[in-house]
C-alpha cells in the first residue's frame, strides 16, 4: 500500500502546504510518493524530495500541465492512481479544483478538507462552517482526499530521495490559460504566517488598512481581511479569511474591527491565541478571543504599533 501526494507549487517554488500534506499522509502508515505536475518544475521536484517521509518523487514536466489546469492534471493523475490506496492534495484552490475531477474520473467519493486522520479509512473534517466536526469512514477501496494544511504541522527534512521523470502524453483541448493577476506582497503568505492581523468592516476604507502595515512589519505578520472588508472593496479577495476564503491557524491572530460572523470564525478559530480589537463589547468575536480590547481601533492601532 502506498500513498500519492500531489505537490502544491507556484512559479517553480514548492509551497509549504506540501510538507503538511506529507505529514498527514504519514499518519496512514504507508509509503509516500509525491507527484510534481507542471511545466519547468524540476526545482519543485528537488525540493519535494527533501521532505521527511517521502520515499519517491515522480516528476511530470509537460507544457500541457502548465498552470496545473484541472483538465490535463486530472487526466495525468488518474493514469498514475492505480496502485495507490490514497491520493492526497492540499485543500488549496489548486487541490480543490483538481481533486474532485480526479475522484469522479476514478468513480470515487471524495473526502474534503480533513483535519485529522483516525485510521487509514476514517477521517475527521469540519462541516457547517466549522460548527460541527464529522468523523467519516470511507467505504472506497481507494481514497481521494484533500487536506486542510493548517491542521497539520509540516514534515521535517531528509536527505533527498531520487526523482523519477515520467513520460507523459496528456493533452488539453478543452481549456486554456489566459492570464494571471497576482497580488504582490513582501509579507509572509497568509496561510503560512505565524502571525496574522486582519481588518474588517470597522476599518472603514482601504487606505486605513495601512494602519495594520506597521504592526504587521514589526510582528512579521501577514495581513488578512474579513469578507465584509473584501466585499466593500477595501482589499483584494485573496486576503479573505473565512469559510469561503482562506483557513488560517497562526500562533497569533489579531482581529481588528471584525464582528466575528460564523463565516469568518470558520477561517481562524483554530489560531493558538486570538486578540480582538473592537469598539462593540457585544461583538461575537470576543467570545472566541483570548484577549479582547474594547476600544476605537483608530486610537489604539497607532499605540499598538508604538508599543511593539
Amino acid at each position, binding site marked *: 500500500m502506498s500513498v500519492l501526494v500531489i505537490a502544491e507549487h507556484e512559479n517553480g517554488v514548492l509551497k509549504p502546504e506540501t510538507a503538511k500534506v506529507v505529514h498527514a499522509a504519514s499518519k496512514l502508515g504507508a509509503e509516500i510518493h509525491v507527484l510534481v505536475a507542471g511545466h519547468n518544475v524540476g526545482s519543485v521536484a528537488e525540493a519535494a524530495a527533501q521532505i521527511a517521509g517521502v520515499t519517491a518523487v515522480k516528476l511530470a514536466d509537460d507544457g500541457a500541465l502548465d498552470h496545473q489546469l484541472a483538465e490535463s492534471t486530472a487526466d495525468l493523475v488518474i493514469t498514475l492512481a492505480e496502485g495507490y490506496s490514497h491520493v492526497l492534495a492540499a485543500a488549496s484552490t489548486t487541490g*480543490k479544483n483538481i481533486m474532485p475531477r480526479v475522484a469522479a474520473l476514478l468513480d470515487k467519493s471524495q473526502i474534503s478538507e480533513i483535519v485529522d486522520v483516525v485510521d487509514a479509512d*476514517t477521517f475527521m473534517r469540519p462541516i457547517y462552517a466549522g460548527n460541527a466536526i464529522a468523523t467519516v469512514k470511507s467505504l472506497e477501496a481507494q481514497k481521494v482526499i484533500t487536506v486542510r494544511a493548517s491542521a497539520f504541522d509540516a514534515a521535517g527534512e531528509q536527505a533527498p530521495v531520487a526523482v523519477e521523470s515520467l513520460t507523459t502524453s496528456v493533452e488539453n483541448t478543452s481549456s*486554456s490559460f489566459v492570464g494571471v493577476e497576482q497580488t504582490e506582497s513582501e509579507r509572509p503568505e497568509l496561510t503560512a504566517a505565524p502571525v496574522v492581523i486582519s481588518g474588517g468592516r470597522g476599518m472603514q476604507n482601504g487606505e486605513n488598512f495601512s494602519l495594520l502595515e506597521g504592526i504587521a512589519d514589526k510582528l512579521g505578520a501577514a495581513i488578512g481581511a474579513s469578507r465584509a472588508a473584501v466585499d466593500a472593496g477595501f482589499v483584494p479577495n485573496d486576503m479573505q479569511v473565512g469559510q469561503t476564503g482562506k483557513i488560517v491557524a497562526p500562533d497569533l491572530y489579531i482581529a481588528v474591527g471584525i464582528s466575528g460572523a460564523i463565516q469568518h470564525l470558520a477561517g481562524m478559530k483554530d489560531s493558538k491565541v486570538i486578540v480582538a480589537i473592537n469598539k462593540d463589547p457585544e461583538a461575537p468575536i470576543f467570545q472566541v478571543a483570548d484577549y479582547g480590547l474594547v476600544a476605537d481601533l483608530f486610537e489604539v492601532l497607532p499605540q499598538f504599533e508604538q508599543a511593539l
Partner: protein
Amino acid sequence: MKVLVPIKRVIDYNVKARVKADNSDVDLANVKMAMNPFCEIAVEEAIRLKEAGTASEVIAVSIGDKACQEQLRTALALGADKAIHIETDAKLESLHVAKLLAKLVEQESPELVILGKQSIDSDNNQTGQMLAALTKRPQGTFASKVEIADGKAVVTREVDGGLQTVALNLPAVVTTDLRLNEPRYASLPNIMKAKRKPLDVIAADTLGVDLAPRVELVRVAEPAKREAGIVVESVEELVNKLKTEAKVIS
C-alpha cells in the same frame, strides 16, 4: 444557449448549526432553511446571461426531498424559465449528485452548467468539478467573472494569490465564487408568476444511478470549545500579556 443551474436547499447561513445530543448528525428539525448562497449567485448569473441575450433558457434543478421545491420556486421567481426536481429521500454524497446531474445534462444538453462552488452545510466543494469530469467538459471553478463569446466561456477564477483567467470551450461547467455578482430579490409579482411556471418532478431512482453510500457518517461532534478569554483595559496591558503570558510575541 441553454443554461442549467443546480441549486441546493441548506440551513440558512445565519443559523448556527447544533449537533444532536446522540452525536449522529446536525439537528435540522425546525431550523430555517434557504437556498445555498453560492447557488443564489449561480441563479443570478444565469439570469443575467439571459437578460444579456446570451442565454435563451434557464433551467433550475434541485435534488432532494419534496421541500426543495420551495427553493426551486424561488429560482423561478428570480427568473428561471422552468424547474426540475429530482426527488429522493436518500442522503447523497457529491458524487451521487454529480451523477444525477450528469444524467440531466445528457437529457437537456445545456451548453453551460453554473453551480455554486460549495454548499455551506457539507462544505465539500466537489459537485461542479465532478459533474465536469463525468460529462467530459472543461471547468471554470471559483468564478468571479464569466464572459461568453465565440463558443468559449472566459472565466476569471479566484485562486490563492490572486486571479487566474482561463478560456473554456463550450459546453462547460462553471462554479461561482461570492464576488461573481450581487443576487437580486424576488419581487412579489414575480413570486406569484413563479407559481405558474413549469416544475417537473423526476424520481431519482428512475435515472439509473447507484445511490448507495460510499462514505459512512460515524459521528458528529461539537468542535473543541475555546476557553473564555479576558478583556484588557489598555494597549500596554495587551502587549504585556502577549509577551509574558501568551508568549506569542517577543
